[in-house]
């Protein structure tokens, strides 16, 4: 009997391209039929698609819930219909997750920010700058991003307590993040560092520095890794210092594996699977090159 | 006789539910001015639309200079040397007068439009028609009559071999019509053929050599104008020996004034108008183009701010603050621009008829369909509207029938004072008579009917009293037997003997 798994992607940014590839690879390996859908970051759309999957009695649902709270009802609905739910990347709040979710495959979002925050702190300490001034491109409409930012801020404040947080604006859409970063940097010439919580934000920050002619005066710390960010690490090492990458394909594959286990009723030993992050530094171009070579199709 | 310029053979055309033309033959010679006559809905406009390439015939062929031509688009028509002024105004309100005169054929210089030349020539083209306007202002700001002249100027400029004028004078007054007739005659002398559609019998005799009568989509007769009497024409038109109506005026009975107006001033045109409107009479208001007749009616109907003056309605002070205020006091006006302001073309005929009187066919906001149908049916019968189904869109009707619906709407609103701005525009002789009778009937039932028309002859047929509006004030009042064409035209223009 053919197994059908429903997969919900949070949106169509590059990261989810990687997730999708991982999930598709995982499903292909075990000849599972896949019903995919893009929630477009909207809890209402997510509820709509999940209901469709539930009504068609899929064997399991793999999803990155839009919200820790707003996604609870659909997760609950699936669980009550006897459909195991596997979270990846994001999940509903712990209490409900324990009740309704079989497994969570994720990156530690707080740590994703925290680790690069440590790199940033050390960078400025090494340069003898005790009052770095940061501009932030956030994606606070997503709860994961709020955690990344919190992690980053905590780490930096621990290492360089004199840090100044200047502008903090939304910047996660391609193009718009570049506009916002450029405005920020031309508007506040004292900013000497940028932090961005997504790949598009990180690209925007780098391009903002270039557009405002501030190369060498401001540096970028980012989250996520992509071909383009890898290029910047290699070609603009004085601007992009570090970015902490996730491994979306791994995450996708692991999620499918968890889903299959849940379907078969096998015991899942650990609810939480942390997919490790990978730090990429402009001071270590070889690692970046190796990452690029491993991905000829450019999917992270 | 030489070969005709244009020949139409066996033309048939059907619209959903209506056959507009049945096997019509039509031919016109060079330099000939042909009047095309027929009741509303007879198929006149459809016939000329086919010539202009606007509509395609279902059957039949067209020959120019003896050779078959294919007129499938307006472009084909224009290329073949046919210029048309359509019955429905087709100006672009947002563009300037000059641009509208040159619409689609703007003069060019060095890759761009030559605005200077365009404005100069547009001004000249309008002057020929007796209109002196700043050609840069948008057409949205000029009156319906002026728009009609802009369209005529557009057609005249094309230097066509065949000029089609579909009711060109419907919103013009005698003077402009006269100017136009002179222009048409001159063109004909220079070899242009002209098809001239009009419901105004007096014009026909002055402008055309021959006439064609149509009825129910059929060609009835084509003769020289001199060979038939007016009475014969009307008989051919109506298809019966329906009596030429006598004057339908009632005996002048002195009635008490319903609305008295003293020293009315409405910027910019009405300066000092004093007159009264009496219940039970049909009151005409005559004046030249732009004399402010529309403004006067609009002021009474609450559509314009009154600058000064006093009004008393049934003896008590009254000043219409808004349309709704006037309406609440029993005043209702029908506008002259039917398409733009008079009716909703997309909606059904029935709804247009009851649009201003929903209260009478609804209860608690819910439409009482039976009552509505009864009212609509009564209106359709009373006005003799030719239609396929009461709920078909009003836009499907011929121009004259649309006009009847607009009047029907006003009558259904049951006003005490009914203001009709050019109600007989584009209405055929038979229907005009019906409309006169409706006006008379309304007056007999105690309404005050105020009637504005560009055709002086009309006043003679229906009015009890006529006011002359000149220079912003009422300069004369003519009553009863004294209402005669010559008198009125002298009084409105201040000149002796136009005819």
């Amino acid at each position, binding site marked *: 009997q053919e197994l059908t798994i429903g997969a919900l992607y949070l949106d169509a940014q590059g990261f989810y391209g990687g997730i999708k590839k991982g999930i598709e690879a995982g499903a292909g390996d075990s000849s599972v039929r896949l019903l995919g859908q893009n929630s477009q970051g*909207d809890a209402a759309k997510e509820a709509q698609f999940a209901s469709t999957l539930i009504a068609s009695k899929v064997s399991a649902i793999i999803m990155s819930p839009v919200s820790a*709270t707003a996604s609870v009802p659909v997760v609950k609905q699936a669980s009550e219909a006897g459909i195991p739910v596997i979270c990846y990347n994001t999940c509903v709040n712990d209490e409900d997750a324990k009740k309704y979710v079989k497994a969570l495959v994720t990156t530690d979002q707080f740590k994703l920010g925290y680790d690069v925050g440590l790199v940033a702190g050390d960078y400025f300490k090494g340069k003898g700058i005790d009052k770095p001034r940061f501009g932030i491109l956030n994606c606070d409409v997503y709860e994961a991003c709020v955690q990344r930012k919190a992690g980053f801020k905590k780490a930096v404040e621990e290492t360089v307590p004199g840090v100044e947080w200047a502008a903090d604006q939304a910047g996660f859409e391609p193009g718009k993040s570049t506009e916002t970063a450029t405005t920020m940097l031309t508007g506040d010439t004292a900013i000497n560092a940028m932090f961005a919580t997504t790949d598009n934000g990180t690209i925007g920050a780098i391009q903002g520095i270039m557009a405002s002619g501030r190369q060498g005066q401001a540096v970028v710390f980012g989250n996520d890794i992509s071909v383009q960010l890898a290029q910047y690490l290699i070609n603009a090492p004085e601007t992009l210092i570090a970015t902490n990458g996730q491994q979306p394909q791994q995450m996708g594959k692991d999620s499918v594996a968890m889903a299959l286990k849940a379907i078969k009723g096998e015991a899942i030993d650990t609810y939480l699977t942390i997919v490790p992050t990978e730090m990429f530094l402009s001071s270590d171009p070889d690692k970046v090159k190796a990452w690029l070579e491993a991905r000829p199709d450019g999917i992270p | 006789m030489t070969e005709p310029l244009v020949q139409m053979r066996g033309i048939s055309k059907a619209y959903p539910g209506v056959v507009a033309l049945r096997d019509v033959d039509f031919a016109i010679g060079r330099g000939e001015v042909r009047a095309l006559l027929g009741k509303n809905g007879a198929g006149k406009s459809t016939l000329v639309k086919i010539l202009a390439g606007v509509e395609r015939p279902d059957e039949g062929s067209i020959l120019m200079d003896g050779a078959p031509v294919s007129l499938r688009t307006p472009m084909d028509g224009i290329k073949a040397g046919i210029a048309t002024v359509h019955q429905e105004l087709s100006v672009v309100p947002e563009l300037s007068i000059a641009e509208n005169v040159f619409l689609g054929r703007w003069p060019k210089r060095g890759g761009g439009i030559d605005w200077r030349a365009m404005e100069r020539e547009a001004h000249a083209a309008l002057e020929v028609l007796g209109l002196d306007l700043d050609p840069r202002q948008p057409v949205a700001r000029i009156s319906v009559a002026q728009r009609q002249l802009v369209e005529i100027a557009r057609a005249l400029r094309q230097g066509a071999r065949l000029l089609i004028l579909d009711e060109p004078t419907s919103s013009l007054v005698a003077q402009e019509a006269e100017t136009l007739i002179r222009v048409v005659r001159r063109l004909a002398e220079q070899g242009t053929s002209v098809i001239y559609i009009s419901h105004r019998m007096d014009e026909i005799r002055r402008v055309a050599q021959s006439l064609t009568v149509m009825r129910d989509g059929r060609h009835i007769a084509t003769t020289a104008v001199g060979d038939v009497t007016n009475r014969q024409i009307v008989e051919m038109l109506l298809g019966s020996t329906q009596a030429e109506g006598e004057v339908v005026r009632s005996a002048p009975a002195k009635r008490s004034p319903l609305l008295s107006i003293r020293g009315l001033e409405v910027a910019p045109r009405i300066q000092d108008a004093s007159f009264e409107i009496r219940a039970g009479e049909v009151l005409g208001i005559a004046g030249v183009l732009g004399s402010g007749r529309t403004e006067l009616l609009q002021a009474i109907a609450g559509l314009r701010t009154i600058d000064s003056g006093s009004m008393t309605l049934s003896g008590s002070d009254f000043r219409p603050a808004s349309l709704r205020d006037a309406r609440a006091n029993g005043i209702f*006006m029908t506008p002259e621009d039917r398409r733009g302001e008079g009716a*909703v073309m997309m909606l059904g005929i029935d709804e247009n008829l009851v*649009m201003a009187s929903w209260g009478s066919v609804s209860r608690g906001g819910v*439409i009482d369909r039976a009552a509505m149908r009864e009212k609509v049916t009564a209106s359709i019968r009373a006005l003799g509207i030719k239609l396929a*189904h009461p709920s078909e869109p009003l836009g499907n009707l011929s121009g004259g029938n649309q006009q009847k619906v607009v009047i029907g709407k006003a009558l259904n609103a049951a006003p005490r004072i009914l203001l009709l701005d050019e109600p007989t525009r584009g209405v055929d002789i038979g229907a005009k008579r019906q409309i006169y009778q409706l006006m008379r009937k309304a007056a007999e039932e105690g309404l005050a009917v105020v009637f504005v028309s560009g055709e002086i002859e009309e006043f003679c047929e229906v009015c009890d009293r006529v006011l002359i509006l000149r220079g912003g004030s009422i300069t004369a009042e003519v009553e009863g037997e004294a209402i005669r064409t010559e008198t009125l035209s002298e009084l409105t223009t201040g000149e002796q003997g136009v005819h």
Partner: protein
Amino acid sequence: MAETRSELYQKFDLRHFLSGRANEIGLLAAILVLYAFLAVFASNFMTLPNQLNILRDAAFVGIIAWGMTLVLISGEIDISVGPHVAFAGVLLASLAQSGVPLPVAALVVVVLGALIGCFTGFLRAFFDVPSFIVTLALWLGLRGTAQVMSDAVPIVIMDFSFQRFGAGSLLGIPTPAIIMLVLFVAFSFVATRTVFGRSVYAVGGNAEAARLSAIPVARIRILVFAITGALAALTGILMASRLGSGNSGAASGLEFDIIAAVVVGGTSLFGGRGTMLGTLFGVIFIAALVNGLVLLGVDPFAQGIVRGVVILVAVMVNIISIKRMRGRM
């Protein structure tokens, strides 16, 4: 005479009847073709739970679509409904959070929704501000207000019986679907049988003629927006109930889906023309299509392409067949 009079109306004219409903007939045919296709190729599409599911999804578009149909017929547009839904949900949740009983909070939200609509209509009617601009300002402002109120974090509504309102069902039919269908009947009646409804058509068809016929044009304009505002608020409540929280990011792009469904249903963006039945068919068509594409397992990135092509083809075929039908009669 009395008899011939009613004949003008009373004889049932099939051709006239059909030609007046050509659009709806075409849409119905399109829906049937789509259903036939999906029934064969999408497993589980024709199951009852899935059909009810389609109805529930349709409700979140349909309820507002009734009001939007009136708005478009009157020659206006309202692009603020998506953020309005989010705002209503957040407001409801934060009222509930601060102790206001849910029914009271819901009433407040709906009344406020109607008032917001009145505001739009007022600026349109009395200051001639294009409704696109006013509702653009609301589009920006309402989403912003919802985000500020909630810090973009969903505000949870604890009441579980309330959750059943949006997610539950009555006699097996999802509550939102029932509300949608009841409102459909009401709005069909309003649009065709009431003075208000017909006045909306008149205003959209020719506002100047409507004004001169003493139709209260300003009042009509205000009312259509007020109704749509109230419906957006109602949808916001249903959505909050379904999600168990007030969510400032919810219903993004909903205005777009709604306008698309209404236009697919044959309503003109230029006013004067449109029917509730057409809108119902437009809503159902798109909801079934979206659902079917999920069940067919079409690649999520490619779904947009398929949706675009199917909608275009359906509308084109409908337009062509309307012309044929009209032409033949």
